[in-house]
């Protein structure tokens, strides 16, 4: 049975189609979820895609967090549902307090799109278990507000618990503290990542195929998970 992975569309979501494509290429069935519909339609995992939900005029993710679908997702995530937030999705997860810290304006104040090397720091999550510890991957980054900040105690705790999932290497594109590109919750089922793995799943359109690992990981996770 193929796993069903939900991809949420908020008003202003942009990379929802790409995330669904990545899910499909990874071998799962993408299920499109609508922000106004609280039902998760029996999906096994959820991707919150990139974009500018609600225009992101106030703070990125601030408004999306109140969407009906988010209430269900927050509960399900606390119950262990694998959730991957990419870029805007990461911001939404922080705003919804599923992940600690916040994403602020890039320190150089510009939107920046480039191919970015990352080091996978934690392979113990639902979304990174097919990577090697310390593996270096090449994935596009594109954001205006991707600078990860948290207070020193939180940062220390993330490091100590192995919850920094990926770090920027070869230059930090946005000024994130401790070069953090991705983090997870303490259970390892919720991951937020600033760069876009869904843009690195096809030779023709991506700088690498490295992004695919995030999507195949969740399938592996689901196979291993008790039903």
């Amino acid at each position, binding site marked *: 049975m193929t796993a069903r992975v939900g991809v949420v569309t908020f008003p*202003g979501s942009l990379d929802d189609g790409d995330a669904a494509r990545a899910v499909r290429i990874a071998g799962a069935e993408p299920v499109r979820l609508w922000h106004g519909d609280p039902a998760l339609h029996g999906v096994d995992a959820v991707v919150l895609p990139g974009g500018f939900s609600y*225009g992101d005029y106030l703070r990125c993710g601030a408004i999306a967090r109140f969407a009906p679908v988010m209430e269900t997702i927050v509960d399900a995530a606390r119950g262990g549902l694998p959730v991957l937030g990419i870029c805007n999705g990461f911001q939404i997860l922080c705003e919804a307090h599923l992940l600690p810290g916040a994403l602020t304006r890039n320190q150089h104040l510009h939107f920046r799109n480039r191919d970015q090397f990352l080091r996978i720091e934690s392979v113990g999550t639902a979304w990174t278990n097919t990577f090697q510890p310390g593996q270096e991957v090449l994935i596009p980054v594109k954001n205006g507000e991707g600078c990860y900040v948290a207070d020193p105690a939180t940062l220390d705790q993330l490091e100590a618990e192995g919850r920094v999932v990926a770090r920027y290497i070869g230059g930090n594109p946005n000024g994130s503290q401790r070069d953090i590109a991705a983090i997870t919750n303490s259970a390892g089922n919720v991951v937020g990542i600033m760069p876009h793995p869904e*843009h690195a799943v096809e030779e*023709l359109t991506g700088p690498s195929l490295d992004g695919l690992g995030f999507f195949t990981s969740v399938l592996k996770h689901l196979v291993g998970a008790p039903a």
Partner: protein
Amino acid sequence: MTTHPDPVRETPEVAPVEPRAAADVPPAAPAAGSAPADWAAGVDTVPRAGGTPGELQPYAELGLRDDEYERIRDILGRRPTQAELAMYSIMWSEHCSYKSSKVHLRQFGEKAPPSDRLLAGIGENAGVVRVSDELAVTFKVESHNHPSFVEPYQGAATGVGGIVRDILAMGARPVAVMDPLRFGAADHPDTARVLPGVVAGIGGYGNCLGLPNIGGEVVFDPCYQGNPLVNALCLGVLPVNRLQSKAAAGPGNIVVLMGAKTGRDGIGGVSVLASATFDEGSEERRPSVQVGDPFMEKLLIEACLELYDAELVVGIQDLGGAGLTCALTETAAAAGTGMRVWLERVPLREPSMEPHEILASESQERMLLVVEPEKLDAVLKTAEKWGVWATAIGEVTPPAPDGQPGRLVITWRDHLVVDVPPGSLVDDGPVYARPMREPADLILLQADRAETLPRPADPEALRETVLRMVASPNLADKTWVTEQYDRYVLGNTVLAQPEDSGVIRIDERTGLGVALSVDGNGRYARLDPYHGTKLALAEAYRNVVVTGAKPIAVTNCLNFGSPEDPGVMWQFAEAVRGLADGCAELGIPVTGGNVSFYNQTGAAAIHPTPVVGVLGVLDDVANRVPMGFVPRPNGDHDQLFLL
């Protein structure tokens, strides 16, 4: 943001005129009486205009010439009302009527090679070409030069927004943008204001819409100091049978305004038309800067596409430069029908707006739909689903019994403020064959040949020259700009910067794709506008060909100085002739474009800057040829040829 639950037939408080009346007895008189000589609730009405033929009107301030104003009076058989005057002044402006360029642009059609791919050509919102049995693409480049000089961020942002709506109106999903840009000297302080704002605006809007930026140009030259050029191109894809029409066909159909509320954006031009009751300090309330809301546009795109797929609209037109005026008259004129509009139903951002302001407003993110009455509910529901306003503001009326086109009849709170033949605004505008003269300095310029320049004589001088060239802003790396644009979104970008063309996959199953390049060289065109334009075409054509694509269509944006200057007009005529001839020689049609005149500071015009976009087809994007050398498996080597 909710849908306005206000279908035309159910607004009791205004007791509208029977829609048919407009058609049966043109020109229609409203039921409501307005004392002819008085301002009716602060507005100038048709009866009042009939009763006060001698009233002075600020037509000259609105840019209309004496003879143009006389023609309006002839057409109407009376003086125009304020609202009508505003409408004619906008529609007969250079920007909307192409009155100086029309006689030249005809060549694009006349010299064009026959093409069985062309589904919509010049005159439509954007040209549409078939690329397979099922799919067509549409693309167009447009300028937003002056607004981008005044307010770089918003000017550039709304430039992107405008061209995207053009593409959307054809029935296409917008899938990529490009941005040919020209700035003054790189080290001029004002360039430090304009360039970052323009780039941030293009990025801010395009990124927020989720459209990959797949190419463009950044050129610096002092001639653009007071007139930067901000051209924006959009590419869209549609199933062949989803092509939309702008014609307001079908009397009885409902006219729906969808998208943002209407405010006083961009009405600076008609602000001289303050009514008698208008209060002090009104100037401040008349911004000519339009502010874009890309989030609203994104919702508008999704809502429109859903309407197309469900076949819920008969006709559609974007609201651009001339706002509601242009959309109402063009849709009606295209169908030969009339239209009855209740202007007070237009959702306003500022309740105090007057009829001529509502008609002239350039508020962004709006579309005009023509909908069959029984489908109105479904249209409003779709709008509501996407959280955009949609309001029934009028109804299509039949042509006159004798077959003459119908009339556009607009009331505002029961007062008849507009009663015009729509075609008179759209098609019967003035057309000028302006005087042309080769610029007097051209011979001198041409005589000053490159051969007379000093050449590097020794290795040291050569080194100097190379370093100077490498450091010149026009040759330097453009990453600072391109990094601010999302080129990955939608996941179909096969080639983008730093490639010669952008390549977009448009069909994931077959690998079908298109390549696009935009090029121009104002310095060449200044020296020889005819050949300079051909060179721009040739460059874009080559850039497309080298990716492995077959060029099939051309778009262009012609950026020039004042058409009232015979030297500029000559440059323009030569450029158009060059492009038309070049296209004939290469066997591809011009499918659309845009003319931007008056890029001029005082007497000094910019270099004539025709920007040419060429689109090509790749049957399978997997076969595209990238710029760099691709490492071959098992040590094979590429062979190099210089053609």
